[in-house]
């Protein structure tokens, strides 16, 4: 019964949204009644509340193990802890789409009600948001109904959540990611409304700035959590695979980073207005494209949901329509948007626009990498895939040029050209130091990889130039923008540690019998396989190995496991990780051979912790920027 009520509430929300659109578009588009906005907003708020209540009921259904609902029966289980019963809702397509809509309505209702009562763009923004929410509501209810029942009777026990998703990081990764993806709907709708309205005297940057910044924070956290989870849970020892689904998350991230920067330029010196608006529209369009790629099954990826042409077609049509609508309005208004002011070459905003172009180039390259296999397949029928080498070669030069611009722009001023002499002065110390350190790394490791050294050098350029700036701030009291400095130090650190990781990390495969000890290399001088036992847990059996290694003169105990989940029969590996500041010792247990011995994979991964630290720094920098604005 509760399922039917929840279903009914969602349907009613969709009907209310249709009413809002009909009421505003067909009856009184030009003739605006005084209370029309009030009424529309009231209807919109009610629609949103219906969605929230419906989702709340759905959570209740999941907690109370209502296995007569197909989706819950397929993805939950009565033995699961309550926490995972709730998170099982977003472990597959239908439920995660529902969550997506809840966030969409959440952002929308907060934004609309925060706007001034008679804000000139309120009605148009409301209509755009209603249209987008309605599109997704219809998608959910028509093609992916989470409320569908197993008739006439439900099943007794659910099929359980996929065990690799039974993990705290992964439980909060989708909500964070979606909050980010969906948060850019505000910039999207507001800019479209602004362009449609056509009154270009209005100031629009301030209204959406912080909303977009907060969405950026969620997106960054979401991507990092996904990466962290993949690192410790999948047992491959990697944190980023250039998988199509990772790429479609990276594209909106890059677009929103470019958007933030150009927003700063356009609010500081009144340039790049049209460009900023274009980016604001682009971010959410890329989020929509991502939703299409992930949910249509068009690309074969470890993340993709099941293949369904009907869903793919709907999403392609809907995202295409929404994006083209916004882009069309933008194109129509372009002639009247030209900023009267031009970017001064050598000013801070000129370097910033250069990096904007680089970020767009990266987005384009990723887009090409994701779609190229599809194009090739439709033309020649050949199946191809594009892996890390493509992205590494494309990104190395982009990162290098971007880092040079970041280094120079640290000392550049808004609207004023910087002399060549000053540019060389700014660049001198970081360039020399970075070259020396890069050479030292090369000399010490003896490993050569041109791409990795470009990354190391680029990261060092950013780090050393900010180091110089911090010193200047401490001793000469020169101004430093704290938020920006922390975020860019995070970025420089990321380039540096990722490249160091790629040259230093290595893997050893071992075949060893119980009670045997072997030497691995100069660092791991002894590796002993002490014990192996079978443990019974509530919903899975564990094979747990005890391994003690002597590494760099210290003893380390490691406990890699294999788990077999009873309901699904699925086997997962739990790698044992001993993390230190510099490197992680990462051990996975493989299979047993006929002679009773076991295989192990020992990976030494460098600087992994620093990858998470660098993205935490970027988030921190952003937070400082937001709060500093509030107080000033």
């Amino acid at each position, binding site marked *: 019964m509760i399922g039917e009520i929840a279903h009914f509430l969602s349907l009613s929300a969709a009907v209310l949204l249709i009413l809002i659109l009909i009421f505003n578009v067909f009856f009184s588009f030009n003739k605006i009644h005084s209370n029309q906005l009030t009424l529309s907003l009231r209807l919109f708020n009610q629609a949103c509340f219906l969605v929230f209540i419906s989702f709340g009921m759905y959570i209740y259904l999941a907690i109370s193990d209502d296995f007569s609902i197909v989706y819950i029966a397929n993805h939950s289980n009565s033995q699961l802890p309550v926490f995972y019963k709730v998170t099982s809702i977003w472990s597959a397509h239908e439920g995660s789409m529902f969550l997506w809509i809840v966030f969409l309505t959440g952002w929308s209702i907060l934004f609309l009600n925060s706007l001034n009562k008679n804000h000139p763009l309120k009605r148009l923004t409301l209509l755009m948001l209603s249209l987008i929410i309605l599109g997704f509501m219809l998608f959910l209810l028509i093609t992916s109904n989470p409320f569908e029942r197993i008739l006439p009777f439900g099943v007794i026990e659910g099929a359980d959540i996929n065990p*690799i998703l039974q993990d705290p990081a992964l439980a909060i990764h989708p909500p964070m990611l979606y909050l980010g993806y969906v948060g850019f709907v505000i910039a999207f709708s507001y800019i479209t409304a602004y362009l449609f309205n056509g009154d270009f005297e209005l100031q629009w940057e301030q209204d959406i700035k912080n909303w977009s910044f907060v969405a950026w924070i969620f997106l960054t956290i979401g991507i990092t959590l996904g990466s962290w989870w993949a690192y410790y849970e999948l047992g491959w020892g990697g944190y980023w695979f250039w998988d199509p689904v990772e790429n479609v998350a990276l594209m909106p991230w890059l677009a929103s980073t470019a958007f933030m920067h150009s927003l700063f330029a356009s609010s500081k010196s009144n340039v790049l207005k049209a460009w900023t608006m274009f980016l604001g529209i682009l971010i959410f369009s890329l989020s929509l494209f991502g939703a299409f790629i992930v949910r249509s099954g068009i690309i074969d990826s470890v993340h993709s949901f099941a293949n369904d042409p009907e869903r793919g077609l709907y999403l392609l049509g809907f995202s295409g329509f929404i994006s083209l609508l916004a882009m069309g309005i933008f194109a129509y208004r372009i002639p009247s948007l030209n900023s009267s002011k031009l970017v001064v070459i050598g000013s801070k905003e000129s370097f910033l626009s250069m990096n904007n172009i680089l970020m767009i180039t990266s987005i384009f390259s990723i887009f090409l990498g994701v779609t190229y296999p599809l194009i090739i397949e439709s033309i020649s029928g050949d199946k*191809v895939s594009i*892996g890390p080498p493509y992205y590494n*070669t494309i990104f190395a030069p982009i990162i290098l040029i971007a880092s040079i611009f970041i280094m120079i722009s640290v000392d550049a001023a808004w609207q004023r050209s910087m002399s060549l002499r000053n540019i060389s002065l700014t660049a001198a110390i970081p360039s020399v130091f970075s070259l020396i350190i890069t050479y030292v790394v090369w000399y010490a490791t003896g490993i050569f990889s041109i791409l990795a050294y470009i990354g190391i050098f680029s990261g060092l350029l950013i780090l050393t130039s900010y180091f110089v700036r911090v010193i200047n701030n401490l001793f000469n009291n020169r101004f430093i923008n704290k938020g920006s400095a922390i975020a860019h130090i995070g970025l420089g650190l990321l380039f540096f540690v990722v490249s160091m990781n790629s040259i230093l990390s290595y893997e050893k495969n*071992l075949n060893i019998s119980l009670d045997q000890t072997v030497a691995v290399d100069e660092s791991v001088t002894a590796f002993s396989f002490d014990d192996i036992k079978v443990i019974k847990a509530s919903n899975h059996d564990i094979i747990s190995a005890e391994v003690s290694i002597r590494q760099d003169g210290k003893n380390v105990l490691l406990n890699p496991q294999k788990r077999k989940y009873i309901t699904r029969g699925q086997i*997962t590996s739990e790698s044992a990780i001993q993390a230190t500041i510099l490197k992680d010792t990462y051990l996975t247990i493989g299979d047993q*051979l006929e002679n009773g011995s076991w295989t192990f*994979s020992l990976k030494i991964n460098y600087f992994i912790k620093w990858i998470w630290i660098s993205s935490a720094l970027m988030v921190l920098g952003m937070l400082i920027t937001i709060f500093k604005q509030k107080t000033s």
Partner: protein
Amino acid sequence: MLQVRKNRLWKIFTIFLVSSGGVFLILFSLNSTLDLFYTPSEMLEADIKPEYRIKLGGMVKNGSIKRKGTATNFLVTDFVKEVPVTFNGVTPDLFKEDSGVVMLGYYLDGIFKAEEIFAKHDENYMPPELSFEEEKI
């Protein structure tokens, strides 16, 4: 007027040159990093040079997995032809007999040397080409 046109022409020409250079670089790096996907039959028909890295997908033949030391040897089949595969390292959890597998590696002297093995996060996964082939059988 002429001067203005000339300038405009130069501008367009430069933009054209720079962007075609960029596209060329991207396509060049695309081509050198592309991995072609084959089924065992397709791979045996095609002339694969030892230095070409390719993706091979199929089903792990029942009863063919032999492990020795850290090496795993098995046969991958598309129900028409089969290819011996050797892999050094720990195989993924979903790697098992009678189950779909996709590998990245090189074809040398009649043996496919796999550098990476992908098994999908779905126990019923089968490469799309194969589920098609299987229906035919």
